[in-house]
């Protein structure tokens, strides 16, 4: 029987206060692809070694206990683990109301596109959709045939789970396997939730460069806001809400890995040059309290000002256009 591995190696305060030098998430390390797109086997010892080299003994302890055959991670176990982890992560999306937040932004955005000469139909593509919570939520909320919702993810096991869930939910949407760095799915608006922090250094630039090449007219990305309080809040949230060691580990590391608003703005501005970008203010208005989430919006040049007007009072949550 598979037993959920228990974390080891680091005390809770160390996990929070002394983040390892190389911040990694376990779920990023368990799935690899060959250059031809097929799934590559993953050696458990290599992943453990990778965690140790990045100074993350907690992650190394978790991976070391995963089932393997002749040293290779059991792919069936990894798939089920990924689905279970994303099922847990959905709690975060539900409690932070990612679906409703995205809807609040998409309504004025699509209205702006309509007003500025881009009539429906629209296709909204969620990049790195996981098990597709946001896409399913949006499809359930907006049933007009003018808007199509599509979710794409690199991991076929998650795409399969998303398709099954959509069928059970009875919602009209589509899920495909695709890479965020070479988007093949035509899109009017690219969206994502909790994905940008997975792309570090040059990968973040590649992510926005793919936006530039896509035919999209806009993008809306939601992710954790980097702040000193974020890892503590994340620990509290994941400790009380999540059961799997992998989810707890990755949840805390996500908060530690969150990009600052300058990093996101700069990368988007430099690499997605067709777009005007705006990013949400880092603190709650009139208070020093950090916001939990960052929203990064990009619109084709010239559409930023009309969008701000369409957003109404919600526009106050954003820094000026870049």
């Amino acid at each position, binding site marked *: *029987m*598979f*037993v*959920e591995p228990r974390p080891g190696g680091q005390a809770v305060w160390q996990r929070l206060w002394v983040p390892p030098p190389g911040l990694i998430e376990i779920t990023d390390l368990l799935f690899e692809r060959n250059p031809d797109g097929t799934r590559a086997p993953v050696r458990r010892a290599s992943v453990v070694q990778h965690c140790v080299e990045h100074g993350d003994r907690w992650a190394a302890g978790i991976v070391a206990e995963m089932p393997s055959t002749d040293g290779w991670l059991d792919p069936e*176990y990894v798939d*089920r*683990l990924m*689905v*279970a982890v*994303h*099922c*847990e992560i*959905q*709690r975060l999306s539900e*409690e*932070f*109301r990612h679906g*409703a*937040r995205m809807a*609040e932004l998409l309504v004025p955005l699509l209205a702006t596109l309509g007003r500025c000469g881009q009539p429906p139909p629209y296709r909204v593509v969620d990049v790195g959709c996981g*098990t597709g*919570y946001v896409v*399913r*939520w949006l499809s*359930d909320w907006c049933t007009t045939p003018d808007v199509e919702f599509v979710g794409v993810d690199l991991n076929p096991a998650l795409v399969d*789970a*998303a398709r*099954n*869930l959509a069928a*059970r*939910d009875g*919602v009209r949407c589509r899920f495909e396997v695709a890479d965020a760095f070479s988007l093949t799915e035509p899109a009017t608006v690219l969206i994502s939730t909790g994905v940008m922090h997975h792309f570090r250094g040059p990968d973040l630039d590649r992510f926005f460069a793919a936006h530039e090449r896509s035919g999209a007219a806009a993008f809306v990305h939601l992710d954790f806001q980097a702040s000193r309080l974020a890892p503590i*809040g994340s620990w*509290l*949230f994941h*400790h*009380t*809400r*999540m*059961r*799997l060691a992998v989810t707890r580990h990755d949840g805390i590391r996500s908060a530690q890995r969150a990009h600052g608003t300058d990093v996101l703005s700069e990368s988007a501005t430099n690499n997605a040059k067709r777009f005007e970008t705006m990013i949400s203010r880092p603190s709650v208005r009139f208070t020093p309290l950090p916001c*939990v989430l960052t929203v990064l919006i990009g619109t084709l040049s010239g559409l930023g000002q009309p969008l701000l007007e369409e957003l109404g009072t919600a526009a106050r949550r954003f820094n000026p256009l870049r």
Partner: protein
Amino acid sequence: MNPRLVATVWVLVTLDCALIGYRLAMGRTARLDKRRYHQIASARGALLGQAPLAAVTALGVLVVVRGGEEVATEFNSAMSRFIAAGGAYAGLILVASAMCSLRSVRVRTVASVVIFGPLTLLRPAVVILTVAFAVGRHPTPGLALVGLTVVIPGVCLEMVLDRRIARRLVLHADGHTH
């Protein structure tokens, strides 16, 4: 023993059991509409709590019957204190639940993240402190025994069941494990 106090304690503990059932069900299905799933889970929690609750009540009655008038008075005061402390916790939960029914996305987020999160984390401590406050500093052995029979399952039951669920989560994961 005052039957009204017994009934109020019973309602409070049953509510807590329903919430345990609800929490144990969370994070195990990725379906969009979970209302029925959660209703069933809460009802199951409340129902499962009835047997231990009946056992503790029977033990309490036995202790009071054997101890006489003085012990009965001590039990009544203990139950009043339990209701005061447990009621305050239940009140907070009710306020957060009311906030969750509002339209504002932000108010609902604050309710679930800032109130429900810490309350869930603190629950074991709340159970221990509530029972300690109820039994008082110098309880008779009978009351102390009843207090222990409330604290031990009150703190451990959810943890044990949660661990069991965690072990099986990956085994059957397809997005809607029950």
